[in-house]
């Protein structure tokens, strides 16, 4: 897999990095969803690492996902593995996120391998698409979106990015 070339000064080169906050709210398969977290999102090649925590930086979970497999480690030491990152994340944290598609959307683009439909948008600084059963709105993408709102049936996910370290 893609090697991660360390940058000078010890920082590790990621292909993409975003820090921010997110929430997921609504209902999925009859289950209420009501989660929010500060997140650190890192991608190297096709490996996405997502750390979820509190405003204070205290990490509650770390998910590592590739298109083929996913692993998660919880603050209490529990670890779990699965092929589907979304299921793993929901099961261990209650947070429901379309991780494999968000891998593209958080970088401001539709997933290249799935059909996509452009939707009319309210303003020029917004782009809306429909993909993988989700309605996705990108806000203030310059180049990466500062905010995203994702809707799938009665579930809404909001993402606010504060920094691309």
């Amino acid at each position, binding site marked *: 897999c893609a090697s991660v070339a360390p940058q000078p000064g010890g920082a590790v080169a990621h292909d993409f990095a975003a820090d921010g906050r997110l929430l997921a709210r609504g209902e999925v398969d009859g289950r209420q969803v009501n989660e929010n977290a500060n997140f650190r999102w890192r991608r190297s090649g096709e490996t996405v690492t997502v750390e979820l925590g509190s*405003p204070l930086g205290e990490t509650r979970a770390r998910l590592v996902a590739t298109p083929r497999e996913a692993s998660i480690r919880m603050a209490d030491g529990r670890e779990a593995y699965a092929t589907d990152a979304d299921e793993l994340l929901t099961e261990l944290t209650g947070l429901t996120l379309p991780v494999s598609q968000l891998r593209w959307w958080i970088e401001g683009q539709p997933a290249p391998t799935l059909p996509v439909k452009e939707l009319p948008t309210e303003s020029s600084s917004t782009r809306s698409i429909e993909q993988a059963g989700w309605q996705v709105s990108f806000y203030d993408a310059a180049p990466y979106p500062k905010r995203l709102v994702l809707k799938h049936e009665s579930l809404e996910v909001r993402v606010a990015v504060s920094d691309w370290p």
Partner: protein
Amino acid sequence: DTLDALKSALSGTTSLQGRFTQTVSQHKGKPQQSAGDFAIQRPGKFRWAYATPYEQLIVGDGSEVWLYDPDLRQATVKSMGNALESSPAALLAGDNALEKNYLIKPLASKNGVDWFEAKPRQEDAGFSNIRLGLKNGQVVEMELVDRFEQLTRIRFDGVKRNARLDASLFRFTPPKDVDVVRE
């Protein structure tokens, strides 16, 4: 002994107000910097307002804790309970039962700052270790280590102690277009 210094620093303080800077260092990559201002009214009331790089407000009104995120247009409210994971101010604003929740141990002093370790007695507490730095009887720095060995360092400055603080600092009413979620 020096432990009394910590206890009297905390119990002798009825209110604190000032600015904080927060640095979260991670294994890989640049530390995450944020800053804002805070206010504490003992017992149990605190305000922790992140200003940069994003706005996020945490208010403890004595019985509940509000977390308001303007970018996400959501305010969540939950009972005070173990509110520390929302802000260290909850630790500082806590009633004097510091020792009920933490195992306190004095550590070495470093350039004029007397350090204490506060190990949460609760096994599943979010932070595995907390260190408080005291100078002239006032908490000036905090270090919190999480279960992934990542360190959050908080530095306080411009701190006013025992000033009369406006009660509205410790109340939060969500703006109209914001979703309120009770956890």
